[in-house]
């Protein structure tokens, strides 16, 4: 049926009244009287029309548009209110969206494999009693022999293995490209099956190819295929040169394939042959739970197999507990950052709640100012539901505006976070503002709008209109004041919690960056040299030992040049070391072994504490000597270690000649471990093969900033070794140290920012509530002043309420923080989660800002002019 038009209905009403009039006239009424009576009898024509109108429209839509227009006009009428409210919300929603985008990318997104939840790592937990630094360790690698045994025995897991990724030089390519350093991962042939991925072109390895071969196969990533070979279809079955060796390209992986991480550009077969007697190799196992088997079954089976296998070992070989923990790959990957991300999510939720509290508070104050307007609307026939809906429309409009501004902010926020965090947080690459994140932001905007809109809407729709009009609206003011007070206490409490949390992380970070690294990182350049051609061993030895160093040292401003098989705070891949025996240290595999050139301690700025350093006399054929660090010296108790002998690789005797200062080798928050330094010219392991130059880390100490030496050093490397370049990770040691504390710095910065934002918002809240109460009580204050109250009394009167709220809030926040900071455990260094200093300083500084925030509007109370204020109402 067609909709009737309004005019048609009006015509019907007119006809009704005319018919009625005629009827009354025919009953004997005078025409004028009859018409008046007919109209009277019909009642309210407009109301009837209105009801008709309402019955035939999608009314809520209509009212919504009306409410939106009304809300928009309202906001435009008070731009200051609108701007403050929208900005506050934008801050809260923007921060929440940005953090959610990170959390989603890191914790929620599935990994790009088939049924990624069923991919597992096999973890061996080393208890604190078995490590030298008394920290428990999770070991994801496994002895190759043990792995092969497990692979054969298991019925619950499909197993493959990979090794640490390695960096190689891809020789100049067809397009005439420069040699480049690329990173790849050795994997076993079963890997593709376990991951459930097919190559885009060609094939994957077969198990026959899992052994060294003159011409090994290689599989390239989609990105490498495009970037270095222009996606040429003819590349399959051609050979490429990696570190001077020929590899045959047998396959290309699809673009989505990132294993074990996004930087791997090639895969080569992992040598899965049983290791020779006495040789120990380890691989990283990766398993897929077979259909029907679950994590717990796989764990108990693997543990049982391991237990049984290790039972056959001679007693001294048992190093690890046989218990195997089976963990989803993603859970293991994000394990180091998950607690921090959850803390950040909670922190940002607090910021959002504080922002909402502020807007509620603003709306309450504004609502009070508009009470007569509302009373008028109610008197004109707006129902309570309609009034609430109107108020909610206004808050939703605010929320959406805030949400849009917040999304814009979060774009910047995500960029900032990715810049700050990409080196320290895995899987961050996938973060960004995509559809689910946008949906999240909008949902947050609307939910928060309802949250902050409902309180004032309900508050104001209470009570009769008559009362509102009569009293000018002050009738229910006390209830509103109570709501506002509660809100202020709540937001103060949350701000104090954030301030304490941020304070703990900042103090922890300051302690961490104050740690004495044990060496002097200033003006030290660290680099590795990348070779594209196999280098003659003799030439290598020569180059490295003498000429290269001499020429580097001849550079203007260079004071010392050295190299080592490892540098502190730089993560190493595939690092092995000889066994060191005859020391008082009870745990095998420790101390750490370093091979360094003569000037290493000078170049690194590591202080000699006792005895002597290496000198030119310590060469091949001379008695072998070692320098140990302070921690290792401590194991000798009261005896002087100098002159004592230890054994390296079982039967090479080495005499300790000096003691140097400890350095933080692993990380600033990990205690120094015992170390033994040997002179590289008397070395045993690392530099005895052709790959040596790829292992060596050079350090050059200069008189100027480290980075300024890069061009000169690069020039010398190019002259000395054709085709060689400086590795990409060339860096000043200062930035290496700075980077090593990136994660705690990130947490401190983020929580610090949230803390500051929370405090600023809470201050605005306190300012607002004081300002409002002063304005409300102008009349009372005028009377008091007229009766002789002093300015001081007036100030305390105006301040009392706000400060009481602040104190209540601080108390509540303090208690809440005491309960909550335990979740920061593990993110803190050098202080407990109940650090007294932070728990005192943070609330105290908050109290100070609260006083300032309340004092500014409170001063007005002292300047009230009794005459004007008495005329106020």
């Amino acid at each position: 049926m067609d909709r009737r038009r309004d005019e048609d209905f009006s015509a019907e009403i007119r006809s009704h009244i005319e018919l009625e009039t005629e009827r009354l006239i025919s009953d004997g009424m005078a025409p004028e009287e009859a018409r008046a009576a007919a109209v009277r009898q019909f009642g309210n024509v407009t109301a009837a029309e209105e009801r008709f109108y309402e019955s035939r429209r999608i009314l809520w839509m209509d009212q919504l548009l009306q409410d939106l227009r009304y809300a928009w006009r309202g906001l435009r009428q008070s731009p200051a209110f609108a701007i403050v409210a929208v900005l506050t919300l934008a801050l809260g929603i923007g921060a929440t969206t940005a953090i959610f985008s990170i959390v989603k990318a890191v914790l929620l997104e599935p990994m790009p494999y088939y049924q990624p939840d069923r991919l597992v790592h096999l973890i061996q937990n080393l208890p604190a009693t078995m490590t030298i630094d008394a920290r428990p360790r999770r070991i994801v690698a496994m002895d190759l022999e043990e792995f092969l045994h497990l692979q054969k025995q298991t019925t619950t897991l499909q197993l493959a293995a990979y090794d640490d990724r390695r960096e190689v030089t891809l020789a100049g390519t067809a397009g005439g490209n420069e040699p480049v350093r690329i990173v790849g991962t050795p994997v076993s042939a079963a890997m593709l099956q376990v991951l459930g991925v097919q190559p885009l072109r060609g094939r994957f390895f077969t198990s026959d190819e899992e052994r060294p071969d003159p011409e090994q196969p290689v599989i390239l990533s989609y990105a490498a295929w495009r970037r270095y070979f222009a996606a040429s279809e003819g590349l399959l079955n051609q050979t490429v040169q990696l570190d001077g060796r020929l590899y045959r390209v047998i396959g290309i992986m699809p673009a989505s394939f990132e294993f074990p991480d996004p930087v791997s550009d090639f895969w080569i077969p992992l040598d899965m042959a049983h290791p020779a007697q006495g040789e120990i190799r380890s691989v990283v196992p990766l398993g897929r739970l077979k259909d029907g088997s679950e994590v717990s079954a796989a764990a108990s089976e693997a543990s049982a197999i391991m237990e049984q296998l290790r039972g056959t070992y001679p007693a001294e070989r048992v190093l690890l507990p046989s218990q195997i923990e089976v963990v989803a790959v993603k859970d293991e990957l994000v394990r180091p950052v998950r607690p921090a991300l959850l803390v950040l999510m909670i922190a940002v939720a607090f910021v959002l709640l504080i922002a909402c509290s502020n807007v509620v508070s603003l709306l309450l104050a504004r609502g009070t100012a508009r009470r007569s307007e509302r009373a008028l609307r109610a008197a004109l026939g707006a129902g309570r539901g309609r009034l609430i809906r109107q108020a909610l429309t206004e808050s939703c409009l605010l929320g959406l505006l805030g949400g849009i501004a917040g999304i814009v902010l979060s774009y910047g926020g995500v960029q900032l976070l990715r810049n700050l965090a990409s080196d320290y947080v895995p899987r961050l690459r996938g973060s960004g503002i995509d559809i689910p994140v946008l949906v999240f932001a909008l949902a947050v905007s609307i939910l928060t709008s309802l949250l902050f809109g409902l309180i004032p809407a309900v508050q104001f729709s209470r009570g009769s209109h008559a009362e509102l009009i009569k009293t000018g609206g002050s009738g229910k003011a006390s209830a509103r004041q109570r709501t506002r007070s509660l809100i202020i206490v709540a937001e103060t409490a949350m701000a104090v919690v954030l301030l304490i949390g941020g304070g703990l992380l900042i103090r922890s970070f300051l302690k961490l960056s104050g740690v004495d690294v044990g060496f002097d990182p200033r003006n030290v350049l660290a680099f590795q040299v990348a070779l594209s051609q196999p280098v003659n061993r003799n030439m290598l030895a020569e180059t490295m030992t003498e000429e290269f160093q001499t020429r580097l040292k001849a550079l203007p401003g260079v004071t010392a040049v050295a190299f080592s098989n490892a540098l502190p705070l730089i993560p190493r891949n595939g690092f092995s070391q000889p066994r060191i025996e005859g020391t008082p240290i009870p745990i095998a595999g420790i101390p750490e072994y370093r091979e360094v050139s003569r000037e290493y301690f000078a170049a690194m700025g590591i202080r000699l504490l006792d005895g002597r350093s290496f000198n030119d006399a310590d060469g091949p054929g001379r008695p072998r000597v070692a320098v140990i660090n302070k921690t290792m010296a401590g194991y000798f108790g009261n005896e002087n270690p100098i002159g004592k002998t230890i054994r390296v690789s079982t039967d090479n005797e080495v005499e300790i000649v000096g003691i140097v200062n400890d350095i933080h080798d692993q990380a600033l928050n990990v205690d120094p471990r015992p170390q033994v330094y040997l002179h590289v010219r008397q070395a045993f392991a690392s530099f005895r093969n052709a790959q040596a130059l790829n292992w060596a880390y050079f350090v050059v100490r200069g008189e100027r900033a480290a980075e300024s030496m890069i061009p000169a050093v690069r020039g010398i490397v190019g002259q000395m070794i054709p085709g060689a370049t400086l590795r990409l990770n060339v860096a000043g040691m200062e930035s290496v140290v700075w980077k090593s504390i990136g994660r705690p710095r990130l947490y401190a910065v983020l929580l610090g920012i949230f803390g500051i934002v929370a405090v600023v918002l809470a201050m605005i809240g306190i300012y607002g509530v004081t300002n409002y109460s002063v304005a409300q009580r102008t009349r009372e204050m005028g009377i008091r002043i007229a009766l002789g109250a002093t300015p001081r009394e007036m100030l305390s009167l105006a301040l009392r309420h706000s400060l009481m709220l602040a104190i209540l809030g601080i108390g509540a926040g303090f208690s809440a923080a005491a309960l909550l900071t335990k979740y920061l455990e593990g993110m803190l260094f050098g202080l407990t989660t109940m650090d007294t200093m932070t728990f005192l300083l943070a609330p105290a500084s908050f109290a100070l800002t609260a006083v300032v925030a309340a004092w500014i509007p409170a001063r007005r109370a002292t300047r009230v002019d009794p005459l004007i204020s008495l005329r106020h109402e």
Partner: protein
Amino acid sequence: MSIRKRADREYSALLQGTLDLLILRTLIQGPQHGQGIARAIQEQSERVLIVDHGSLYPALQRLEERGFIDADWGTSENNRKARFYTLTRKGRAELTREESEWRRIVSAVGRILGPASGKA
């Protein structure tokens, strides 16, 4: 919708659907316009019930939308244009159903109240 009682009480809300029932019942005597319906209800109830016109037209509108009545502009006895409402077959069926329902309720209420006790 409510029907105003003549007595000086305030509004007394009557059973939902009563007005609809009365409109349908009135229309069984033939097509009628709004004013005629209102007047018919008033007169046939011996002026106990007065139709609130603010309710009448929305009720007519509703009945029309549900297909119980049809409407068309026509001319009244004394040559006035008016919108005439006609009972449809569907409306007739509805009336039968509603009417028996109503009688059932009335007799049920009557049983509860018992015979008139003389003074109300």
